[in-house]
């Protein structure tokens, strides 16, 4: 059995609880879909305002996702302003080193998704290769970093379009996210520390247990940031997070992390050793709490409490100084 995106369901997939959830969820999705259709009928351009923000937080219906992501992130503007650019990148001469590292990850991106099988028609592996190759030559400071394969893969699954995926990738890496994928990965190191500071303020019990067992944040959360929750949280939940990521920016990544950690603070803080802590951090990204994407998305805006952009900016600055002067 595969889901609507082509992912095979795990052997232990719980169909009963899924059907339970879906019967409620479908009603929500249908309602949202109608509202979105009306909104898009009445508007020519997606603006940033309270109403659209509320709509985005409640989920962009699948049929409008590409359009909303493209509009909200500025990717559409870039595509319109640079016609033919993507294809010219593909036609140009390529750095064999970048080509090789990208190729090495082709079979290792979504072996559990039928659209990425070499035998499938059409096979998304070729498209994935093209998007990553073009991006690696477009942004030479970044080139290719593992993790980008999972992101480009999701973009292709949703947009089914290489060029759009390329410009969405550019919006993410060039504008929305800090420097996560550059050779030093400084932005990533900073955000891991920022999360640590936020946990210290908001979930001190977890901060304490991490501290007493000497667990560095990068050990348990680097994948969360590098993969933007792809392959960590359930597909539908990731897409809902990405709706907000494209519309509101990278702050959402902290909200998700803080909710996961805060909601499971008892479980984590009772861990007795480093390996138990790691095990529990893996455990909290599974189960009903994260499967029910609609409730989960409501929780991320409630449970961690206030989280102003000013706080994040301040913490990022502080942590960046701490890391670079170490």
């Amino acid at each position, binding site marked *: 059995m595969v889901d609507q995106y082509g992912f095979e369901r795990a052997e232990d997939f719980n169909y009963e609880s899924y059907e339970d959830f879906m019967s409620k969820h479908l009603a929500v999705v249908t309602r949202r879909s109608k509202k979105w259709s009306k909104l898009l009928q009445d508007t020519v351009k997606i603006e940033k305002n309270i109403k659209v923000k509320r709509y985005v937080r409640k989920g962009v219906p699948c049929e409008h996702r590409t359009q909303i992501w493209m509009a909200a992130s500025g990717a559409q503007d870039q595509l319109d302003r640079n016609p033919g650019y993507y294809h010219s990148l593909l036609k140009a001469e390529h750095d064999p080193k970048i080509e090789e590292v990208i190729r090495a990850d082709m079979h290792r991106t*979504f072996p559990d998704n039928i659209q990425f099988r070499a035998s499938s028609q059409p096979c998304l592996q070729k498209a994935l290769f093209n998007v990553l190759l073009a991006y690696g030559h477009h942004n030479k400071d970044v080139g290719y970093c593992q993790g980008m394969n999972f992101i480009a893969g999701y973009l292709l699954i949703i947009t089914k379009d290489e060029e759009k995926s390329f410009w969405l990738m550019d919006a993410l890496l060039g504008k929305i996210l800090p420097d996560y994928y550059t050779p030093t*990965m400084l932005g990533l190191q900073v955000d891991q520390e920022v999360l640590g500071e936020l946990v210290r303020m908001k979930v001190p019990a977890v901060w304490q247990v991490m501290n007493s067992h000497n667990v560095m944040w990068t050990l348990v959360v*680097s994948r969360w940031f590098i993969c933007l929750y792809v392959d960590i949280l359930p597909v539908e939940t990731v897409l809902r997070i990405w709706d907000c990521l494209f519309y509101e920016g990278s702050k959402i990544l902290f909200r998700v992390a803080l909710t996961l950690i805060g909601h499971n603070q008892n479980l984590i803080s009772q861990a007795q050793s480093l390996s138990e802590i790691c095990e529990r951090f893996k455990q909290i990204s599974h189960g009903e709490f994260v499967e029910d994407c609609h409730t989960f998305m409501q929780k991320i805006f409630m449970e961690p409490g206030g989280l102003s952009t000013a706080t994040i900016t301040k913490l990022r600055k502080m942590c960046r100084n701490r890391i670079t002067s170490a």
Partner: protein
Amino acid sequence: MSGGAELGFTEHLFKVLVIGDHKVGKTSFVKRYVKNQFYEELKTTIGVDFSMKVIDWDSHTRVRLQLWDIAGQERLRGLNRVFFKRSSGALVVYDMTNGSTLDGALNWKHELDSQVMLKNGRPIPAVLLANKCDETKVCRRNASLLEKLCQEKGFIGWFQTSAKENINVDEAAKFLVKHILQNNEESVKEEEQNMQINLKQQSKSNSTCC
């Protein structure tokens, strides 16, 4: 990193790194060793993957191996270098079908030695794994080259392994654990000797006092 003894029964916890260039088969090796399973297509490892293997070494020794499967891409390597600390041993993997990954393995070994060492200053035990041996064969020339490399670079030994066909996976790990246990015993002995020397010196100084 060893636990307390109870009625002559000892439990040890050892941290073992699994390192090497990307796509040489580190995760496959760990999955074969820990779960005795092979997956034709695994996903790229991002960050670090943990697994635990419990070995009943003999009737009075249990070993818990904490395996740290570390992402191979160069960029992620910098990020993960901090995880070398406090490890007791390492499996350094290369892909026999891709010669450049052997150079990669030597770089990893070099980096390992610069980051971590035993209490007595010697390098921590590391085994070189020539993985994917089901796809190619080690010829005699290769074998003597690997032998020489092991001596030069300070590996305790090498194995040709296949996670796919389950060749030498247990053997290589066992070989490493044996060395880790020996090191552990030696360091305990050294500590005891040091203590005795201290005691002797103390009693000497005591006697001159009297």
